[in-house]
């Protein structure tokens, strides 16, 4: 019987010739990522060793990555102390894939991992962050786990008792219309399958549209696969993956793709044609409350956010800067821009995007998660509405349960910044 990509990856990682959905395995972990919540992982890791008489030892420090991004720079003494505790642990255990708060190699974990060449096709990647699904963009099996599970991984080097997930195959065809892209595709898919539709399953992406999509776009669709409940999203590695790894991630050692068998078994097949797709908006307060833009055009917004692990990459900033160039953000609208990494920030500076944002009246912040999860900055006032390129719009997400968050593409966010109301970028604003 043929295997899906994830079945093949799990077979290799658990030393078996073949596996099928439902099998229980202990796959070896190739990369184990945490962010600030490493503070809790450290706590649980030390707990594992307590009263054993054994010195706490991380199974393989070269496979552990820690990136500070959720609250950078620290917003409170508590966070600062957590970050300090993690720094001390990192130094003691010789963890070299550590990205502190820096303008050169710092940024959001889901951008730092790919751009640093840490993620390879066929790898098993776990992260104490639900958007670890992002790394499926490079053909890896990447999924989110809790802090205690990560402590177990740091100890044993494997994730224990993993049930091989079923896989949904999504075939995407057609060319995106102008100013419509990967974010609209994934919002459309989530609206279609619902927030629970892919629970405990993997979404494997195929088709000409995916083939023509950059790694940046693939990171968007894999990132948000978890919003349909998926354990992971994955794009089987191809020529674009190899190009990205060589040209953008500095990978020089041999890399090989893991591809699905032609007779792989899928639990469901979904076909999508994007050639007539409209810009999509996820309305409050669930990510699957997705509507085509014309049903919400004109909705007053107070804060525009462009950035995050979903849409803070160079191509996202390019689209937004292009729409804003020479124009002004509307009065009574705050526009906040968060490049996903220091590297992207530097590229955006070089290309003049940062200047375009600032001249338009946007504020360009340091790389990090920013207001996305309401832990750090950019909170909303009572009754206010945010339009954001981030990935979640749950009640209270941006720090205030009495506010609303709408999710959209960078093009929609930029066009709406000019008007102060949700605006179709294809039709332009009234500015």
């Amino acid at each position: 019987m043929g295997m899906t990509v994830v079945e093949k990856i799990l077979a290799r990682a658990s030393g078996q010739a073949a596996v099928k959905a439902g099998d229980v395995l202990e796959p070896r972990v190739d990369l184990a990522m945490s962010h600030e919540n490493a503070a809790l992982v450290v706590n649980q890791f030390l707990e594992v060793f307590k009263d054993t008489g054994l010195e706490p030892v991380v199974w393989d420090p070269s496979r552990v990555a820690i990136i500070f991004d959720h609250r950078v720079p620290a917003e409170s003494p508590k966070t600062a102390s957590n970050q300090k505790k993690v720094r001390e642990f990192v130094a003691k255990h010789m963890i070299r894939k550590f990205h502190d708060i820096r303008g050169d190699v710092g940024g959001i974990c889901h951008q730092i991992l790919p751009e640093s060449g840490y993620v390879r096709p066929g790898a098993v990647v776990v992260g104490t962050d639900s958007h670890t699904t992002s790394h499926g963009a490079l053909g890896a099996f990447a999924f989110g786990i809790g802090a205690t599970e990560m402590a177990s991984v740091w100890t044993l080097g494997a994730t224990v008792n993993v049930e091989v997930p079923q896989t949904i195959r999504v075939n995407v065809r057609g060319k995106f219309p102008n100013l419509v892209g990967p974010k609209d595709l994934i919002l459309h898919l989530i609206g279609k399958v619902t927030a629970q539709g892919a629970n405990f399953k993997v979404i494997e992406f195929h088709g000409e549209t995916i083939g023509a999509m950059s790694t940046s776009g693939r990171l968007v669709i894999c990132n948000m696969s978890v919003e349909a409940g998926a354990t992971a999203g994955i794009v089987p590695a191809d020529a674009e993956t190899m190009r990205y790894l060589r040209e953008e991630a500095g990978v020089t050692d041999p890399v090989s793709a893991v591809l699905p068998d032609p007779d792989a078994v899928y639990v469901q097949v979904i076909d999508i044609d994007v050639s007539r797709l409209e810009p999509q908006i996820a309305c409050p307060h669930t990510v699957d409350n997705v509507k085509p833009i014309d049903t919400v055009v004109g909705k007053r917004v107070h804060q525009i956010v462009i950035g995050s692990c979903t849409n803070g990459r160079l191509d996202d900033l390019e689209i937004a800067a292009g729409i804003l160039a020479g124009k002004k953000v509307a009065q009574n609208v705050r526009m906040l821009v968060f490049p996903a990494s220091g590297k992207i920030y530097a590229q955006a500076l070089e290309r003049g995007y940062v200047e375009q944002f600032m001249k338009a009246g946007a504020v360009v912040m340091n790389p990090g998660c920013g207001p996305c999860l309401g832990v750090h900055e950019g909170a909303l006032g009572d009754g206010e509405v945010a339009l954001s390129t981030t990935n979640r719009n749950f009640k209270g997400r941006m720090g205030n349960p009495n506010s609303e968050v709408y999710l959209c593409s960078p093009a929609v966010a930029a066009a709406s910044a000019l008007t102060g109301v949700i605006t179709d970028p294809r039709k332009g604003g009234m500015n």
Partner: protein
Amino acid sequence: MARVVFTLGDDISTDVIYPGRHMATVLPTETPQFAFADHAEFNGRLKAKQVAPGSVVVAGKNFGCGSSREQAVSALQGHELLIVANDFARIFLQNAINLGLNVVTAPGIEASEGDDLQITADAVVNATTGKRYAVQQLPSARQGIIDAGGLIAYTRKRLLQMNNKAQV
């Protein structure tokens, strides 16, 4: 018999269970104060110890969706709540099993605040309405962790086994 003290709908995210602004608080000894922090009334009852240990929160589908934050589990566990839901999101369910939070998957479950539930391994019976709901078993793959009393104890056991083997 267990008393239902709070009911919720579908797709309750971890942002609702444990709002992001409290995420700098990580230790299980400190997280319970922020359980359902944006539901001021219920949070107040929890903090005032007006909710008896073993009380039940009933939820719809996909409870615990969103972020992987483990605080959402430890905060509920600190109040010794029992969560009965139509079903759970994957990471939340794993975290619940890993930490030992009591969770029951009962598809179709309907209950109101104040109802009494009789919960066995196979079924949840709402004693107030008389309706019975079959219980869906937890993933069998996780039984070893449940039996060990949680993932920390399980991992410790495995660590000691590995270490003994290495010494032989």
